[in-house]
């Protein structure tokens, strides 16, 4: 029973990490249809923001809290710049976008290597996040609880923005029918940039969270980018709900399989399951009913 509970928590915490890294992508890839291979490097930018901040603010707790909004702005600005410089010229050519952003991702990695050095850097986690809470024989790692909370908070925030704000209405309008939105007086270019800003900013937030569990290095983004795309594709393009369910489902599946087999086997089985699922439901878990999105 202990094992089951411990593993369930593990699965949920893996799911929270997946959700956090995929959340930004549900906007840029899911809503806008831009395949941004440099998304992982925005995660890296968020992580390095934490690192730089911690060098100037010695308190690990304060620097982590400041890092969250700051990383959002840094990564968001990088995303908006990328959109303005390159991606908006390539909206009609998705495969070119893929190659261009892949190139950008390699350049950003090299840039990080030149600025921060090739070796990984480290940040100190606040003491409160390095411990754990035990309930009976079940242990909940505090950093995992923090990430879970952060992921849910981000989902909540994003949902509120998309549902209830004028900006959210405009974003949804552009996604559902760009031409109609444009003739209704929505500045679609501007909406694109803001959407891209938010999506990339969320990657930055994910980067801050990942400093608590993983390495911070120039290539850290590549560790996560494939998983992020998987979550969005399986969840269904353009659907927040789908991404949330998929992230947690994949997390639990992964942890159950890892426990009963090995990590490598679990990865293979999860991929096979995803391929099989997409054969059955190529549109993903949830779809937005429009005429153009696949």
């Amino acid at each position, binding site marked *: 029973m202990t094992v089951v509970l411990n593993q369930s928590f593990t699965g949920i915490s893996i799911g929270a990490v997946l959700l956090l890294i995929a959340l930004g992508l549900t906007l840029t890839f899911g809503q806008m249809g831009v395949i941004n291979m440099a998304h992982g490097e925005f995660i890296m930018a968020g992580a390095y923001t934490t690192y730089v901040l911690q060098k100037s603010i010695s308190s690990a707790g304060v620097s982590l809290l400041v890092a969250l909004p700051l990383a959002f702005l840094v990564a968001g600005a990088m995303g908006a710049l990328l959109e303005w410089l390159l991606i908006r010229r390539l909206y009609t050519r998705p495969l070119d976008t893929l190659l261009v952003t892949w190139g950008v991702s390699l350049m950003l990695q090299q840039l990080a290597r030149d600025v921060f050095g*090739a070796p990984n850097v480290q940040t100190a986690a606040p003491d409160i996040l390095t411990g754990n809470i035990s309930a009976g024989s079940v242990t909940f790692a505090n950093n995992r609880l923090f990430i879970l909370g952060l992921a849910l908070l981000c989902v909540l925030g994003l949902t509120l923005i998309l549902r209830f704000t004028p900006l959210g209405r405009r974003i949804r309008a552009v996604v559902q029918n760009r031409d109609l939105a444009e003739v209704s007086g929505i500045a679609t270019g501007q909406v694109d940039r803001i959407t891209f800003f938010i999506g990339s900013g969320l990657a930055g937030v994910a980067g801050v969270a990942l400093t608590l569990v*993983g390495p911070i290095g120039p290539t850290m983004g590549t560790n996560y980018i494939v998983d992020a795309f998987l979550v969005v594709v399986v969840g269904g393009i353009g659907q927040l709900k789908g991404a949330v369910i998929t992230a947690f489902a994949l997390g639990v599946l992964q942890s159950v399989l890892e426990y009963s087999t090995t990590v*490598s086997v679990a990865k293979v089985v999860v991929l096979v399951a995803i391929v099989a699922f997409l054969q059955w439901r190529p549109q993903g878990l949830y779809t937005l009913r429009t005429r153009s999105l696949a």
Partner: protein
Amino acid sequence: MSGLSISRRGLLAGISAAGATAALSACGAKTGSDTSSGSAAKADTSGSTVKVGLLNSLSGTMAISEVTVHNSLLLAIKEINASGGVLGKKLKPISQDGASDWPTFAEKAEALITDDKVAATFGCWTSASRKAVKPVFERYKSLLFYPVQYEGLEESPYIFYIGATTNQQIVPALDYLKKQGLTKLYLVGSDYVFPRTANKIIKAYAKAKGLTVVGEDYAPLGSTEFSTIVNKVKGAGADAVFNTLNGDSNVAFFKEYKSAGLTAKSLPVLSVSIAEEEVKSIGTQYLDGQLTAWNYYETTPGAANKKFVAAYQAAYGKDKPTSDPMEAAYISVYLWKAMVEKAGSFDVAKVKAASDGIVFDAPEGTVTVDGATQHVYKTARIGKVGSDGLIEEVWNSGKPIKPDPYLKGYSWASGLS
């Protein structure tokens, strides 16, 4: 609106195309041209300088480790040149970037041998890169000096193995654990040749010497999700964890280990791929008190090491640590120099013949070259990570251990290889 539409098939095709490009470039790097195969490449030693090749990953995922090895090689070459060179000739280092890509290593090795006509090559880190260049050096009958501890079971006539083989690192580490009464081991490693081979040896040892392996887990290289593995470790009732993870995975593993409430006191981890540089990048607070197995630490006593550490930090920065593979790289150039001088020639066959019994006062202590295996006698050292990020030795083998890459001298290992 059609502009935004994108089909899933198109996306997957695009992503797999990107993957295929990488794979293709891998296939494209065929080693060896037909015309020159079989013939020994003649090193060019006619001028007043002699070229030596440095083959390290200066970019890509392995750059983190290999750049430091490259630095120590350059340091050794600089020192040798300052004291008059080798046989009166100055050394001219030719650096090639292996780019963390194994076929590229083979390609660059060939360029060093046939275009630059180097007298010897120093470098490679991963076993995969060494396996990729091995046929190249054997075909051209040129020498490679390999500076990293590895999984053993190899004796190429054209490679000198300056890092530890298994009986100089893993076997002494097991002896140490056994002596400490830590008899129930959990094996955690990255999923590739070194950890799998190492664990095969550990299991054979355990069976013969009454240790128990209570669990064994592998994570793909680069994996950063260790919550399940740590859960399994925690529930397995082990006395110690034997860690053969490599690279970034260590960071995620030790962060998870700490947040699960495990410490060096409650369940010690002995690692064979974590040196001073890695301690720095993982974070000392996650490694405090954990064990490592190497042949050299920055803190190893002796005048030779004091001199090496001072020279390295003067050249590359006060805060730069020195580590075992860096030290092995550093001494590899000196060992080659000693062989050449004993042979009185740069000729590969003569250098090989002269190698047996070369003694060098290295930072790690006195090392002796074993001509038969082309390995080096090394002292095994177990260290404990301190809160200052340095590793303090807690045990050593007392004297240099004779290299035994095929573990022929160990009866329990007869079933291996």
